[in-house]
């Protein structure tokens, strides 16, 4: 389970899908990195990823890690966003029978999990059918 401080550091990515785009070769790093894995340049500009795309692949999680136990079963997918970036996330508000490779989905802001009844509530992006 992530600590509140680690989660807090990831807010720009989890809330706003902020990525780093290499000023030299255009490589998009999500989460952002200090050194471009493609060309080793160190200059990045902050961009926001596209908010929709299509399912590349998916799986149903029936035995999830601890903080997600109450949510099982749920769908996880890799989605190719309209800007070409690939992103992993939960696919919700969709019956499993309706999941299909190539299906259009969009990003919505949702509750990811909460630390019991008294802890922090963590928010972030999920995919829903478009």
């Amino acid at each position, binding site marked *: 389970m992530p600590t509140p401080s680690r989660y807090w550091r990831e807010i720009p990515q989890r809330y*706003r899908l902020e990525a780093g785009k290499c000023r030299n070769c255009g490589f998009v790093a999500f989460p952002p990195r200090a050194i471009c894995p493609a060309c080793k340049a160190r200059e990045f500009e902050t961009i926001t990823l596209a908010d929709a795309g299509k399912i590349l692949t998916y799986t149903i999680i029936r035995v999830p890690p601890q903080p997600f136990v109450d949510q099982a079963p749920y769908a996880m997918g890799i989605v190719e966003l309209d800007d070409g970036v690939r992103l992993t996330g939960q696919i919700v508000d969709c019956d499993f029978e309706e999941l299909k490779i190539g299906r259009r989905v969009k990003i919505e802001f*949702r509750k990811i999990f909460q630390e019991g009844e008294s802890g922090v*509530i963590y928010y972030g992006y999920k995919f829903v059918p478009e």
Partner: protein
Amino acid sequence: MEGIIGYGASIPRNRIKVEEIAKVWGADAPSYRKGLLVEEKSVPSPDQDTISMSVEASKNALKRARINPREIGAVYVGSESHPYAVKPSGTVLAEAIGATPDVHTADFEFACKAGTEGMFVALSLVKAGEIKYGLAVGADTSQGAPGDALEYTAAAGAAAFIFGRENVIAEALYTYSYTTDTPDFWRREYQYYPQHGGRFTGDPAYFKHIVGAGKGIMEKSGLKPADFTYVIFHQPNGKFPFRVGEMLGFGKKQIEPGWLVNKLGNTYSGSSPLGLTATLDISKPGDLILIVSYGSGAGSDAFVFRVTEGIEKVRDLAPKTRELLDKNCCYVDYGTYAKFRQKIRKAG
């Protein structure tokens, strides 16, 4: 002139029918349908709450406003279902839309009128010249106790408005508020479900305050019911808005476009604001719109808006409210609903 420059809505996909609730409690569904004029209501998914719906509604408002979110000077969330008792909903919203850190943020609470309170303050700050843009959201994931009359209507949804001075799509011509101390509906600290005064919630509460605010703003503005193309009243059930409209001199045709409660339920702080979004979706330049909220405890905020030419350019930039209401609905049974709303919990 100051006014709305962008607006947006968020409505969960899940619905539950009045029949499904009535079946569980041995109640007579047709008489609830007829008595409340409500057929079904929205139900949030387990991962949706006031904060997440506020973000989605605000993102839609930003699509219409087409501004840099860093220039938003105030972010207000009005709700009676803020996820935290202590920790603002507004900070998550402000961060999620990219308005931080130079922004004023506050959460409002006033039963079903918390949304229009935020609108009143955001608009006033723009008018005063303190901020360039102000964002106000009315959002709720309301709960009714199992088997209580409120369970047939308590629903979820959010509406967001961005106020500004340029590229205004609906000018805010007048505002007026009417407030008294009236204990018609309340929830004490640590209590999960609210209590209400039964029939007391009608005449001395809903009707008195909406009529007071409606008459007050018409007196202040010199406008009469026939001057308005549309009117939106708070919608705790289907019948009240039509009855209070009749008391003030408004007809069905003015009320119906913003009347969503038959399919949506009562979204509390989101109720009249969502009605305003649905009305803006179909309004034309020059239309005058009156909105009167109601919050138990008790008070009403009234606004007169005049729609501008700008509406035509922005309304198609985000999903329309009736599309959100009618499209992709997923009907759930009472068991699923009870689990989603944490009325029942898994052991361990």
